[in-house]
């Protein structure tokens, strides 16, 4: 049951882009078309899940026992960079169709702070492995949802008249602000739901 609350919190209440401000670069950069936005979200889901699965045992098996907690940032970013490269090579060899869809986004993902942020968060929140997996999937879904919604709005926005100084990023940012405001309507839903379910 608590997983349901966790999923709802990560997707709606504490949306990684609109409430936590992670992954803003791809959110603004790759959101001009709904299709691309969706594929980007999928690529993030894929990498985030693998990254969490790999970094979790590294932290608890290697860094913590040897008192190397301070090496977390450096090891994580190297592992993530290496992972992204590997995923790229493996996809290219085994699933060329998927690769041609996701390929262009993969290099971008290394510097996507959602991946590193989630990998660090599951340690900070003291989640166990199952919770970490659920959290990373739900976070990525929240990212995808925000991307697709935002891209949908931007497609419409592109054909409207705007003041010259507002064109491009400024109006996109203000739109994102309104979207964030809409998402704030979800706040408290997690608490209400857990009370209703008697948790």
């Amino acid at each position, binding site marked *: 049951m608590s997983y349901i609350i966790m999923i709802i919190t990560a997707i709606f209440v504490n949306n990684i882009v609109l*409430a*936590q*401000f992670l992954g803003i670069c791809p959110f603004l950069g790759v959101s001009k078309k709904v299709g691309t936005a969706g594929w980007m979200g999928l690529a993030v889901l894929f990498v985030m899940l693998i990254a969490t699965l790999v970094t979790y045992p590294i932290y608890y098996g290697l860094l913590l026992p040897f008192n190397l907690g301070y090496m977390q940032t450096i090891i994580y970013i190297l592992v993530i960079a290496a992972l992204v490269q590997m995923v790229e090579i493996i996809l290219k060899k085994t699933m060329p169709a998927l690769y041609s869809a996701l390929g262009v986004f993969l290099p971008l993902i290394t510097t996507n*702070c959602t991946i590193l*942020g989630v990998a660090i968060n599951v340690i900070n929140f003291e989640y166990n492995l199952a919770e970490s997996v659920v959290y990373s999937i739900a976070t990525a879904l929240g990212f995808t949802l925000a991307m697709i919604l935002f891209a949908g709005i931007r497609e419409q926005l592109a054909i409207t008249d705007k003041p010259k100084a507002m064109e491009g990023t*400024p109006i996109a940012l203000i739109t994102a*602000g309104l979207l*964030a405001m809409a998402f*704030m309507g979800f706040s408290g839903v997690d608490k209400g739901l857990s009370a209703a379910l008697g948790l």
Partner: protein
Amino acid sequence: MSKLGIIINGLIKENPTFVLLLGMCPTLGTTSSAINGMSMGLATMAVLICSNFVISCLKNLIPDKVHIPCYIVVIAGFVTVVQLLLKAYAPAVDEKLGLFIPLIVVNCIVLGRAESFAAKNGPIDSACDGIGIGLGFTIALTVIGLCRELLGAGTAFGFSVYPESFGALTFVLAPGAFITLGFLVAIFNKLTAKKG
């Protein structure tokens, strides 16, 4: 280009926030007040200056094909140093900025400057570029933080300007971050367009 010219360039012409639109996550995430924004800017500036300098010194020792991983290791190293120093000597700042300190590693500004400036210029010039871009980033974050704080809570740098109950709290919360930045970028666009 003179040393001063390099610094000015980072401040205005290549302002990382308003012109290049890089490093948006900390720009939005840590600017709920002017002080928070400034702390984040200074932490990023420290990393920028050090990593630019060191990468420029090492640029000939690094083969092209592995330059990105090498740069990332250097940057992550300095980020961790800054993180440890903050934890030790300014724990309050570390708590405020939280996750955004380790995330300086993936701030596109730092890696971007390493690639586009430090890899091509001398160590001193690179350090100056770090100062310029870092200052530009710090000023931008402070301005955004100040606007949000002033509109949302009626304070500037923690000092009360008008009664809090008149403030629009939205500006301190998530939506205000996007909206404030959107308008500030539009204003910056308008001003620079007139000059040009």
